[in-house]
Structures are given as structure tokens and as C-alpha cells.
């Protein structure tokens, strides 16, 4: 396990959508899941998760509901809405295109020019 990577600007929203798309989660759960699926490689400032969650809910991309957590406490669970699913889909596509484009640029060698 190497050094944790700082999150790229503007990608937190996408990661939250992805995390929530796998099943309803409370805020702390979102944090855990992102860290888990990134193989503990991503460092997210804990507090800054919440403004992002609120922003996404404000935009109607995720919805929230109070429920009971694993440790038998009341917690607010977030789940993906239909609009959120569409957004995640289009963002993923955009990201993939961007990533492959950047990758191909970075792989360019002088012979290929």
C-alpha cells in the first residue's frame, strides 16, 4: 500500500454517486465504501463529504431517508435517484473518454508523430 492519493478536483461527486449506486448508505458509510473500493488509496477529508452530499441531494441526484444503522442507531441513508443514475452514467462515460484521451496523449512517443 503506497501513499494515499489526494482526490482530483470535482471527482468527489462522481465517487459519491457511484458508492450510493451500489446500495443505500449513510454518510459515514459512503466514506468507508469509497475507501474500501479504492483499496484504502484515496484520502477524503471527512467533513467535506457532507457539503457534497447536501449539494447532490439539493440537485435531486440522491435522496435521503432516516433509518437504522448497523450499530442500532438512527442514521440518514442516501440512495441514488433516477436523475442520479443518469448523471452517474453520463459522468462515467465522460470520465472514460477523458481518461483514455489523456492516456493516449501521455503514451505518445516521438516515432508516432
Amino acid at each position, binding site marked *: 500500500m503506497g501513499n494515499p492519493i489526494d482526490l482530483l478536483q470535482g471527482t468527489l461527486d462522481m465517487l459519491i454517486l457511484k458508492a450510493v449506486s451500489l446500495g443505500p448508505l449513510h*454518510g459515514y458509510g459512503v466514506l468507508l465504501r469509497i475507501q474500501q473500493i479504492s483499496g484504502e488509496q484515496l484520502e477524503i477529508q*471527512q*467533513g467535506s463529504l457532507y457539503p457534497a452530499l*447536501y449539494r447532490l441531494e*439539493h440537485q*435531486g441526484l440522491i435522496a435521503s431517508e432516516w433509518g437504522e444503522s448497523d450499530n442500532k442507531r438512527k442514521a*440518514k441513508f442516501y440512495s441514488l435517484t433516477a436523475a442520479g443514475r443518469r448523471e452517474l452514467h453520463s459522468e462515467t462515460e465522460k470520465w472514460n473518454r477523458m481518461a483514455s484521451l489523456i492516456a493516449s496523449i501521455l503514451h505518445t512517443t516521438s516515432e508516432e508523430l
Partner: protein
Amino acid sequence: MRLFARLRSWMKSIVKRALLETAMEAEVRFHIESYAEDLVRSGVREEEAMRRARIEFGGIESHKSAMRASLGLRWWDELWIDLRYAARKLHKSPGFALTAVLVLAIGIGVNVTAFSFFNMVVLKLMPVHDPDSLVRLQRRSPEIITPVVPYPTVVFYREHARTLSAVMAMMGARMEIESDVQPVKADFVTVNYFRELGSLAACGRLLDPARDDASDAVPVVVLSFGFWQRRFGADPSIVGRVIRLNKKTATVIGVTSNTFSSLGGQYPDIWLPITEQPYFVDGSKVLTDTSGGNVEMWGRLAPGMTAKMAEQELLALTNELRKQYPKDIWDHEFIKSDPAGHIQVIKPEMYQVMAMVSTLTLLILAVACANLGGLLLARGVQREREIGIRFAIGASKARIFRQLFTESLLLALLGAVAGLIAGYFVLRVTLPRFEAPAWTSAAPDWRVILFAVGMALAAAIFFGLAPAWQIAWRRQRQRKTIARQVLVGAQVAASCVLLIVAGLLVRAVHHVMFTDPGFGYEQVLSIDPGIGSHGYTPAAAQSFLNELQNRLRALPGVTSVSLVKVSLLGHSISRMGTDIGGHPVDVYPNWVTPEFFQTMDIPLLRGRSLLAGEKNAVIVSESLARQQWPGEDPIGKQFWQKDTVVGVAGNAHINAVNDGDTVEVYWAAQAEDMPGMTLLVKTAGAPEGLPAMVKPIAESIDPKLFPEIYLLKAAFHQNVLNFELAAAAVSMLGIAAALLAAMGLLGLVVYTVSERTKEIAIRIALGAKPAHVLSAILRQFVWPIAIGLLTGVAGTAALSQVLRKVLFGVSNLDPLSYAGAMGVLLMIATAAALLPARQALRVDPMRALRCD
């Protein structure tokens, strides 16, 4: 879609704010405690785990504030903070707050009142069934406009028009009830009238096509709510009672509801089926006569039909009618359809009046805003310390600007509330004067409230934006002076316009009260015997009128009797538009007997009077002769091709008293005009006793007549009274504007002087002459005032053309009004500038210099 989601989320957060705050708190706590638990599980000590969880989470309050910002609550929260701060600030300086709200209440209140009237007339629909599809149908040709059509044509249109689902006819009349002296206003209507309007009865029933249209139906009458109360003391047993109208019996079947709204803004005392008209008016041919117009026509568009489609179909039907009655249908006759669902049918010329009124009222608001702008600028100087401190502790310019503007907004909204209240009271007082129907109300509806809020926003932008900008961005001194000069100039210009218009109107009232109108009305009585509606033939009418004239001449004190076709200062007027030398001119025609000029004291300036029944001869008014044949002798000239001018009469705008631009044309009344003639009787002394003597004479010649008698004097005064009220209202506005301008100027001069006290003190200490110092301070106001005055004068001169029609012949460029307004403003401005400046000269130089 996203926008909608945001809006919904935003509304939810605002409405359930407390819930949101506790939820945020709970969520954050849950996160920290869950993390701490996980840390404990991995072997960290409990207190240490809690501490680390908190630290790693970061600043709770700043995250919470970011969460609120995510929900779009930030500006909302800041708005509340600003509003609370503004309220506290205003509370601390009640003098300023009160002045500002008062100034705004005047500015906004005047506009709200004007808009309320506009709303009532143009925007509000009547509380009747489907008001949008109601139309008024007017008979027209390129030359003639008339509100009335023959009844048989109404029947024809009703039977054949597919674009109209209903056609209604209405005919106004005056009738004698029981043996009262006072006649009642009656409307003969088609029996579908109430059903089409969806009206309900207060008691009994209203006219019903199924029961009241049969040829053997008993004569019935419907009473208006007001008349039932006044005449019958709201007697609940009125339904079924038989009353006498025009000495004929009729059964009362019901009373309309208090809030009944009638078509065309006409509110008669009683309604009767039009098919019963000949029963009440002996000899009437209204139902069969196709030659003259008698009834007003209204319709309801069939579903899906437009007014245009109806007009097209009615044109085709009119052409069809021409085949049946070739003599009675005019060339190019057509039917014009106008929306009729409002309190009044809207005429195009009303828009001109509205534009005029709204210009004046907006000017008041402009003066009020310029005034407040000055006050705020001066206040900004006083608050320099406070604002400096806020800058020092890190407030941004935008934040300061927003806060200052919020203060203006709060003031403007308070002003709007005060304006709404003021408008409500003005309406409450004035509505009864206009005989507004009972369903109208002085209370503002959502449109008026929206308008007031809009006005407040506009006002806040107008008076608050510039000062807030200037204070927040701390512009250099030069700009400040320019802002001040613009404010002074705007106030002076706007109040100048208002004062000139007020002056013109006052002059016009004065003119009409104290100068000769060109005709004598003090001692003249008008008698309309109404023989035409009783089916008199021209010959019968002639002999009746001869007899009546002879008996009237025999009365003591009567000096002259004559006949006119168009009654004077009466219900209807006749007007022709024409073109003289390229200018459109309104011509008021009349058909008279030779003694007319003597009865009305209208001087014959040239030529001779008309001969009885003379054809192809015309008398024109002096101004018509002057415009048509400048510098020439009009006698013997041809007028409108077929008539020869035989005389020139003095100007007498009898039927357009307030329009100084009209001209008059007189022809000799012809034999066929006789059934429609009105008598004019002139007495040597007071005419008040005459009506009581005339009525029995007319009735003794023909007992079935109910002549309408009135004093010209009363009608004339009624005409002038409304105008006097308007002049008084505009004068009050003008004076209010001038006072506001004076206050504004005073404030600005005080402010300038206080800003420059030190400079003044130094100059005086160095031995400058007071006059020089004074002129140095005041020089900056001279140009704005001069330019303001000039703009005001030029603007009024350019725009006042529309006023000509109401100025009773006073020129819209009347020099006295202009000079007067300028004089008053100059005096006020000088006083406002000199008083505080002189005060400044008395300062003790040493004290002023030692101070701070």
C-alpha cells in the same frame, strides 16, 4: 428538471428550517461517534478515539455552513441578517425612517391608486358567467359610429349568426313610477339578459326566456337591489306586487343581487322585457322600426369563435339585410365587436388618458426617489465610521453594498405597505363618487399588491442603488458631486412638469368659471318631450311642438323658446371628424330652429340666422370660419359641397365644454327631424320654478308623455365639477412634488455645507466676503436647477398636446402656467439653498477648525 428539484429542496429547507438544523447536527454527531467506535474497536482508547474523530472530521461549524451553502441557503441567511440589521438601524434613527417611509408612501401610493383604477377598468373581469366571451356589437360605417341599432336587425342577427351563441339587446329609458316626481332609470332588455350573465336574484326570480317571452306573458319588472332598498325599504314581500310604471301595471317578479354586474357599466333601477316596451310607451315602433337605431347590442361568442370571425359573419349578414331594407342599411356598414367583460367597454382614447396619468404619477415617484437618494447619500456620510469599521473587520465591498441595498429594500417595502394603505383609503373615498357598482372593492387584489411590490423594487433600485454603490466603492469626490447634481436636476425637472400641468388645469377651471363660455346657460331649461319614442309622425310632432312652444312662450318670464335636435349637455352627443387644412378637427353639429341663437345667447357675428326649415344653408362657428377660410369672408362660401354659409356664430363648445379645439356647425331643423327635437326655454329671471310649471303643460297636450326636464346650469356645473376635482388632485400632486423637491434640495445643501464647514471657516478666517463664500458653495447647484427647469418646461411643452382636449380652450402653452411653475420652483429652490447656507456663515471659525 434540476432547477425544479433545487427549487423544491430549497423551499423544503426554508419551510422546515429547524428540522434541517437538528438533522444536520444529528448526522454529524452520528458520523463522529461511528468513527470513534471504529477507532476503539481497532484498539484506541475511548477518550483518545473521540478526540481523534473530532480532529479528523474538521471544523464542525464550518462544514455545517458549507452544507447550508450547498442547499442554497447562504444568501437567504445573509438576507435575514441584513434585514434584521437594517431594521435595527432604522429603529435607531426613527426620524429618518419616518421621513423616508412617508416620502415613499406618497410616491408609491399615488401610483398604486392610479393602478387600482386601471386594474378595475382594464384588467378585472366582471363577476359574470364567462366574461371573456362577452362582446359589445357596434354599428359602424367609415363615416358613422353609433352605439345603437334597430331592434329588428338584432333579431335578424340573433336568428342567423353562428359565431354568436347569444345576442342581447338593451334600451335605456326613463319612466314614471307610481306618481313619483323623480323618474326611474329603466332598461328594456331581451329576456335572455340575466341568464346569459349568470345572475342570481336576491329574492324572487329574474327574467326567464321560458316564461317571459310568450306573447301572452303578463308585464313583469325586475328591481335593482339598490332601488328595492331605497324605494321599497327592502320590503321582503315585494315579489308579486303590482306596481304602476308610466301609468301601466306591471308585476314585480324579483330583485337582482347586490353584486349584480350589468353590461356596459349601466346601472338602471329596473329592468323590463324589451317585448313589453310598446305596452309601456304608447305608440312606440321600437320593435318594428328598421330605420333608426334604438337598442344597444351585445353578444356572446360561441365556443371557439373569435371576435374577428364574428365580425366577418356579421358583415355578411349585414349585406343580407341590405337586400331586405335597402334604404336603411348604410354604404359599407359593418358591425364592430369589442370585448365587453369589463366594468366598461374600453375605448382607445382611454389609453391616452391612462398614459398621461401614469406619466404624472411616475414623475411623483421619480421626485420621491431622487429625494430619498439625496437623503441616503447624506446618511452615508454620517455612517462613514460604522462602514469603515465593517470594512476593517473584513467585510467585502459586495457584502457592504448588499447590506446597504437591503436597507433601501426594507424602506421601499415599508413604503409600499404605507402606499397600499393610502391607496385603499383614497379608493374608498372616491369609488362612491364614480357610482361604482357594488361588486367593486377598494381592497387591493393580488395584481395591485404585486404592482406595489414591483414599484417598491423599482424605487429601491432607483433611490438605493447609486448611493449604496457610491458608499461601498467609495468613489472620489468628483463623482459624488455629479450624483448630487443629477439628483437635484431630476427633482427639479419632475416637479416642474407636475407644477405646470397643475397650473394649466387650475387656469382651465378658472377660465371656465370666470369667463364667458360663449353661450348663456344660467337661465335656460331643456325639455325633451320624448315624442319620438311614442311613435309621433313628423307632422304630429310639428303640431305638438308648435302648441307646446306657444304655451311656453305665454308663461310669465319666458323670453325665448327654440328647438334643437341634439340635446345640450345631455346624455348623447353628436360628433363628426373632419379635416381642415390638414389638421383633424372635431365638428359638433346641430339642427336648430331660427330662435336658437337668441335662446342660447350665441352672438351672430356675420350674416344672418337660419330660416325655418331652410335647406342647403349653414351657419359655422367663428373658429371654423377662420380655419377654413383664413383672411376671407366666409359668407357665401360653399361648405361640404352642397351647403352655402349664410352666417358666422360665436364659438360655443356646448357639447364639448372642455375641448377648446372643436368647431360647431348649425343647420336648420327639417320637418323629419321633429319627432326627435328638444325644447330650450330661456327665462328672464331664475329658471328654478319653471320645471314644475312645464310638466303639467306638456302632459295636458298629450297625457301619455313623460318629458325629461333639466336646467342647463345644473348639467354645466356637473360637467365642470368633475374637472375641478381632477384639477385639485393634480394641484395637490404638484404641490407635494414641489415640497418634496424643496426638502431634497434643503437636505443636499445642508449636507454639502456640513461637509465643507472647515473650508468655509478657513475662508472666513482669511477674510473672504460672505457673499463669495456663499456663491462658492451654492454654485454647484445653479446648473442642475437651471437644466432641471429647462428640461421640465421643454418636456411639458412637448407632451401637453394631449391635454388640449380638456383645457376649456386655455392653450397648452399658456405662458402664465409655465412662468408660474418656474417662479414657484425658483423661489422654493432659493429658499431651500439659502437658509442652511446662511447658517453656515455664522459658524465660529475657531470652533469649526478645532473640532476633530
